[in-house]
């Protein structure tokens, strides 16, 4: 497959991970075997990391689902900068996302848990106690409006006429 088509494949899969390879082949005007081979290559190269569904958990469970974004200031380590402390933090199962940031703090840690106490315990007993961590500021997420480009609770109907010029 050409580089352009490979890029097109990635763009489609980013938003429609479940789409069948037969449909993908038609969309790309390509042979299905080539699509399968390209997907395998992208998986092997770790370009495609997983095929996930974006879930609005508020609609399927009554259990509490707490998420927090924690701003973390750290002391960078000689030779490895922020990478070593980041590697330690990302291993905690509570951490769902981790980014190195510019600005007033260094790492942005996304944590998800069942209870606010659980998240607080993680911050106080695990995150803050790391040697390189200088300070933390925790922000609890109150509501999710948009995630990964997808608007939650969107109810935009197709308002077009059924047949038009």
């Amino acid at each position, binding site marked *: 497959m050409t580089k352009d088509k490979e890029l*097109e494949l990635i*763009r*489609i899969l980013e938003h*429609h991970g479940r*789409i069948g390879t037969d*449909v993908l*082949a*038609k*969309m*790309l*005007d390509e042979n299905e075997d080539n699509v399968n081979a390209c997907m395998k290559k992208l998986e092997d190269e770790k370009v495609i990391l997983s095929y996930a569904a974006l879930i609005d958990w508020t609609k399927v469970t009554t259990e509490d689902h707490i998420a927090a974004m924690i701003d973390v200031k750290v002391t960078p380590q000689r030779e490895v900068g922020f990478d070593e402390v980041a590697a330690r933090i990302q291993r905690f199962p509570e951490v769902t996302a981790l980014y190195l940031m510019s600005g007033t703090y260094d790492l942005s840690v996304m944590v998800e848990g069942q209870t606010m106490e659980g998240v607080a315990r993680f911050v106080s007993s695990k995150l803050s106690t790391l040697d390189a961590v200088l300070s933390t500021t925790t922000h609890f997420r109150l509501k999710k409006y948009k995630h990964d480009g997808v608007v939650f609770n969107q109810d*935009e109907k*197709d308002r*077009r*006429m*059924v*047949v*038009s*010029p």
Partner: protein
Amino acid sequence: MSQNTVQPKTKNKRLSRAVSNIEPSGIRRFFDLAANMEDCISLGVGEPDFVTPWNVREASMAALEQGYTSYTSNAGMFELRTAISEYMLDRFDVGYDPEEEVIVTVGASEAIDLAVRATIDPGDEVLVATPAFVSYEPLVTLSGAVPVPVAADASTDFKLTKERLEAAITDRSRAIILSFPNNPTGAVMNDVELQAIAEVAEAHDLLVFSDEIYAELSYDTEHTAFSTLEHMRDRTVLISGFSKAFAMTGWRLGFVCAPPDITQAMLKIHQYSLMCAPTQAQHGALEALRNGRGIVEKMTNSYRARRNYIVHALNEAGLSCRFPGGSFYAFPSVEVTGMDDETFAEQLLKEEKVAVVPGSVFGKGGEGHVRCSYATSMDALQIATARIEAFVHRHAQ
């Protein structure tokens, strides 16, 4: 002679002869049939399935908040005309003077009407490459002129040929209406093919009304603006708008670029009939041109993938379908079912609840084909093509 010029059996004395002589759009009947049908999947929609980009909507609202509620100049905001001029030069390599050669219109539809009325006299003939957008022939008739369809049908890959055009020319021929990428066929014509048409236009001193509303939706080749062809700038009226590229159909905002004598004549009609295009829409359009180009590219990429899908799926379903190079329509033949296009579309709607538009409503060259718009979701396309496949298998001869 076009069917639109046939005299009605009985004339309502309160109506003008011109109006009595034209039929309502054939699309209307299918709208009425499909409108109240539940679970109907529509491939009959001739407009983008995207909502106008947010920055465009926001700019229009901001204009309202700031009190931009009065008329603009007849030709449209100078700022917008300048942006149109820069856009045409940058995107399609054709420059127009925003002062004298650009008019902002109420949709490309008004621009077509203005072009015909400003340049054509009663009794003149206007050649229309068909199948074509449903308005062209009636607008010619309403101006008192005579539309002369020239087949750009399946036998020429839905392209207009020099030979067919020349065969249709008479002493009364004054202009040609072209639209590539085409609605309903999706056909595009490259610069070499268009140059052949340009040579005929020059040889017979014809004006060319080039409706390039789908120019941004050209998938495999760069769009050629007709006025960039040799000697064509002075005899071309370039018509375009914001509806298709920027998903702004309901805003009714188009524009026309032409030599000053033609635009000034068009402006007379525009100023007496409509005064100017809506002000808030013009502010939105300005934002679209300034900051909407990346969004157009994203939408075009999405249409391209859906085009690929539907063409393969229709062919697998048994309907022979060429790869359209532009717009957002596939135009398969329904010959395999033995039905004419009207019957096919009506039966498909009744049996499978899939709305398509019969090709014959776009002119004689569209007979035996149906227009399938792929400006709809991939989910809808998959269901629709599966239903079409079931229908064709039941009726294939």
